């Protein structure tokens, strides 16, 4: 093979290396080839005009995604200073032909998928991850670290900067240096089968170009350094066959510097794109780029209110250069720049470096596609939506607040909910409360039951290349977002097994205006709620249906089906109510679900006139009095009844006395108490009757029983806050007069202090807590 390639200008590169890009351009100017062959998927040739168009602004990427329904994609990103990109630009500017010669994207994805299968820990990463197919170099990171350490450097990036980016090179010397480097990092004996296959594919492609008439001297081939080394060595052809190509589609999409900086594997490392771009533009003058960065960074600091003098900037620059010198480097790199800045402008603090300098070195640039780039219908609709609603398109999180009373902003909400349901990563729902508090209520979910009553929505918006990937891939679901949402909601209905699953889809269908999905979700809810035995699911479904009934009136889609919703609500609620006592059996943990369902249902019974309040209160009364049920659940029921004024004070005292009278099994009494306090301890403890019953119960316990009940008692009292404790103490004073503190201790610690102090550290601690409590 080596013979047939004689005369071809093989130029080794590292992806995203400004030095490689610079040397390559010099070589191209010198050789003036007719044909430029580039490592990259060969089925992407059709995209070359878009990639190299004058109005295309990197960072951009070739995106390949599977069209067989399995979500998998890969990207080949290009920065302005990527040698591959400059090769394309050179060809475009000089009327030379450019072509990609690596195996096609379908094979790259197939190899990725196969690797993910054998390599289970990679599976997650490779399945949906939108990166350049894993470079073989990444498989042997130790070798790269060892190389850095051999020269007394901390990591590979530092090594690369010191040996390849900052020193001056001529094309020929750079080529020799990279070939030597490749021999060290990717020796023939370690060449994996996959890389070897690609060596052959690319070698064959070059040979074919010669065979079809281009003189080898007029060909420049731009390949990763390891591939060039393999071709120069003339490695024997691998035995294994090429993988079967998966069906794929390709597109050019915008990429971003923050994403590029995350790709800092050994193969495509690039930890500071904006810094590299600066250096590249100045002919790889890293000292000058450092100064530019420092000036900009000082400006940033000033804008944030720090005092920064020019003397500081100059000192930082001097220090960075001295450091580089001490380390035997020809110019400062990211490391020297960071360290010098920390010692000077940041006065020794690491935080400003991490938070301001590194993001600055990475940059925020997002690429742009030229006019010639075709867009699919979703990409167009997305762009229109962004423009119409004035949403930010930067690769950095930004908060957007929508007031839904305003029709434009309501439109934006519909747009964002559709993106959410279409699973296009762009906006995530933050909450309906003020952004300042940030405390999103637990149940305040994007598509939660509260969604219909919101007046405001906060979203965190961030465009990233993953957004573009999703836009390209989702087209298989439909040409418009509305269509995509219908399809995806239908899928969700298909997998729903509980009533709550179905009603959740109902809300999303309303939020995205998906009429067909709405009808189907309603059918599913009806079917599932009649067979569902899970009280949590039933209570959630009832809550969602109640919200739809209450807040649906403003939505035309819902007024037509109001009758169905009400019928469904009553049915679901009734079924939940009937199943509730059964769910209150078992132990404290098991009854947790039942308790939360109970509280949900209680709220509904109180607020929703369509529901049978009387039967509900009877159900609670039964649960509160039933000694066969889990005691915490009974306690919750009792407290709910009291707060709803279904029990008067005397009734409650009677109930408490009965439940707390169980001095033989005090742990059950304590559980009851715990449930009782869980509901609204403050209102309960404001009531003297309740405190009196409590005090009697505790005083009546024997030391032994007290000890047994202690863990449960601790649990019960743990929920009390400062004001609850104050009321408790006040009432105790009222009940027992001035001697209250003494009584209080007695109440809690019963009589036998001595016996208790022997109980060991854990129990003693518990006792202290209870002592503090009163």
């Amino acid at each position, binding site marked *: 093979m080596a013979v047939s390639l004689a005369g071809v200008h093989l130029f080794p590169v590292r992806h995203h290396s400004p030095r490689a890009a610079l040397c390559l351009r010099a070589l191209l100017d010198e050789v003036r080839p007719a044909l430029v062959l580039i490592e990259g998927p060969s089925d992407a040739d059709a995209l070359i005009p878009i990639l190299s168009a004058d109005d295309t602004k990197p960072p951009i990427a070739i995106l390949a995604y599977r069209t067989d329904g399995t979500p998998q994609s890969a990207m080949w990103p290009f920065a302005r200073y990527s040698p591959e990109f400059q090769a394309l630009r050179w060809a475009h500017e000089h009327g030379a032909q450019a072509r990609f010669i690596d195996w096609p994207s379908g094979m790259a994805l197939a190899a990725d998928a196969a690797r993910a299968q054998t390599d289970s820990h990679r599976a997650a990463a490779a399945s949906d991850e939108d990166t350049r197919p894993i470079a073989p170099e990444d498989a042997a990171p130790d070798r790269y670290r060892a190389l850095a350490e051999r020269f007394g450097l901390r990591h590979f990036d530092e090594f690369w900067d010191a040996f390849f980016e900052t020193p001056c090179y001529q094309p020929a010397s750079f080529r020799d240096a990279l070939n030597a480097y490749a021999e060290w990092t990717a020796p023939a004996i370690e060449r994996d089968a996959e890389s070897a296959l690609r060596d052959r594919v690319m070698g064959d492609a070059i040979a074919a170009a010669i065979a079809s008439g281009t003189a080898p001297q007029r060909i420049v081939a731009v390949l990763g350094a390891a591939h060039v080394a393999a071709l120069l060595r003339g490695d024997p052809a691998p035995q294994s066959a090429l993988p079967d190509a998966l069906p794929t589609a390709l597109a050019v999409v915008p990429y971003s510097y923050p994403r590029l900086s995350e790709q800092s594997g050994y193969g495509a490392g690039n930890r500071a794109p904006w810094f590299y771009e600066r250096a590249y533009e100045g002919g790889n003058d890293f000292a000058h780029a450092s100064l530019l960065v420092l000036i900009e960074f000082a400006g940033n600091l000033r804008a944030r209110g720090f005092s920064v*003098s020019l*003397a500081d900037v100059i*000192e930082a620059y001097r*220090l960075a250069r*001295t450091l580089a010198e001490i380390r035997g480097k020809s110019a400062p790199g990211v*490391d020297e720049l960071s360290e*010098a800045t*920390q*010692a000077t402008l940041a006065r*020794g603090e690491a935080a400003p470096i991490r938070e301001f300098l590194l993001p600055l070195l990475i940059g925020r640039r997002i690429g742009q596609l030229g006019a010639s780039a075709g867009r699919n219908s979703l990409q167009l609709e997305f762009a229109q939506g962004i423009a119409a609603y004035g949403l930010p398109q930067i690769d950095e999180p930004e908060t957007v607040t929508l007031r839904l009373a305003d029709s434009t902003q309501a439109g934006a909400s519909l747009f964002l909910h559709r993106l959410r349901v279409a699973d296009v990563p762009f906006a995530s729902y933050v909450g309906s409360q003020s952004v300042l508090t940030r405390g999103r209520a637990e149940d305040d979910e994007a598509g939660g039951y509260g969604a219909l009553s919101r007046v405001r929505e906060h979203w965190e918006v961030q465009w990233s290349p993953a957004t573009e990937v999703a836009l390209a891939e989702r087209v298989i679901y439909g040409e418009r977002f509305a269509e995509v949402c219908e399809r995806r909601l239908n899928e969700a209905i298909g997998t729903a097994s509980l009533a709550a699953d179905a009603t959740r889809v109902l809300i999303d269908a309303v939020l995205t205006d998906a009429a067909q999905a709405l009808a189907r979700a309603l059918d599913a809810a009806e079917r599932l709620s009649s067979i569902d035995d899970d009280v949590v699911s039933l209570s959630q479904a009832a809550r969602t249906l109640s919200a739809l009934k209450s807040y649906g009136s403003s939505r035309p889609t819902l007024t037509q089906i109001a009758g169905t919703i009400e019928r469904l609500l009553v049915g679901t609620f009734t079924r939940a109510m009937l199943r509730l006592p059964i769910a209150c059996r078992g132990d404290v943990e098991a009854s947790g679900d039942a308790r939360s369902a109970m509280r949900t249902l209680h709220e509904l019974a109180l607020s929703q006139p369509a529901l049978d309040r009387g039967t509900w209160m009877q159900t609670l009364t039964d649960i509160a009095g039933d000694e066969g049920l889990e005691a915490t659940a009974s306690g919750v029921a009792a407290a709910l009844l009291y707060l709803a004024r279904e029990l008067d004070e005397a009734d409650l005292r009677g109930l408490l006395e009965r439940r707390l009278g169980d001095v033989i099994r005090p742990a059950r009494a304590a559980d009851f108490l715990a449930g009782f306090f869980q509901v609204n301890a403050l209102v309960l403890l404001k009531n003297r009757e309740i405190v009196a019953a409590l005090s009697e119960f505790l005083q009546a316990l024997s030391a032994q029983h007290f000890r047994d009940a202690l863990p449960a008692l601790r649990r019960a009292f743990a929920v009390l806050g400062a004001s609850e404790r104050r009321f408790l103490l006040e009432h105790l004073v009222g009940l027992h007069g001035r001697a209250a503190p003494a009584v209080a201790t007695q109440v809690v610690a019963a009589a036998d202090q001595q016996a208790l102090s022997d109980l060991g550290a854990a129990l003693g601690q518990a006792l202290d807590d209870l002592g503090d409590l009163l």
Partner: protein
Amino acid sequence: MSELRLPAELKFAAELAALEATDDALRPPQWRLSPKAVETYVMGSARPIGGVAITPKYYGDRALVQVAIATLASDRALMLAGEPGTAKSWLSEHLSAAICGTSLLTVQGTAGTSEDHLKYGWNYALLIAEGPSERALVPSPVMRAMRQGKIARVEEITRTSPEVQDALISILSEKQIAVPELNETVSAQRGFSIIATANTRDRGVNEMSAALKRRFNFVTVPVVDDLDQEIRIVQQREAQLRSDYQVGAPPPEDLTRLLVTVFQELRSGATKDGKTKVRTPNGVLSTAEAISVLFNSGILAQSFGDGAVGGVDVARALTGALAKEGADDLKVLREYLETVAKTRGGAWKAFYAAAKQTLA
């Protein structure tokens, strides 16, 4: 006893001489060694140089030391800031010894430090007898460093008064000290610089002014939080102290590990596995303190024990160190013993029992 407290330039004279003899790299004006050789002196060398083994002085981040050296090479003043006991003074001493051959031009910062300590004072007997004269002038270490083109060290700068800090500003910006009584001005020779140390725990006592901060490059000396790394430091420094002072006994490996674990867990407020929270004491549990506790256990074992360092000795030395801050810290230790030490096996068993007894 005096030779025990030898300054670095004397104690490591052989290393420095060997480095100087073999150093052919470029030296900044007045420097005794090139920056690279200073770095080698501080970080140590795997191979002997000029036939002399170069021992590591500072165990930690090489980049930090390089920044410190590069700062001094560009004749900018250096501020070493960090928690107590992180080897700030230690680094300052070794850097000045290696760069200018003396670490003795030192001003110790305290609340009582006055401007005279930074500039000059008078021999009052001579002053009264002869009036102001060169002979009666008592130059401060800073003034001497200026005249000789050497490095002056200002320790614990955060403890000094704002007036003293202001005086330092003018010294650093003008690089000269006026002596109006003699109608003359002492100007700094090339090679003059200052290494200051600042304790970040002192913040708020005398927070440095922005004007003063601007005169320095800052290097933050970190607390070591890697267990093995700190064990290595403590082991090696303890062994050095033992050989310097010719007292004590070598602690077994597992006890050193135990002690450093205790320090790191109390310092960070959680056990190494992150599962148990522990209270943190008020006292500073620095690496330096760990070294001294370990060294002290050796002395205790030798003087009061059977000569071999055991859990008892470590427990005693540790309680002694924590007792400095008062009863509260002992309570913290007691809690730690019950909640953490008690649950562990191996060397912890004897340590737990001994510590409990010591605390009783």
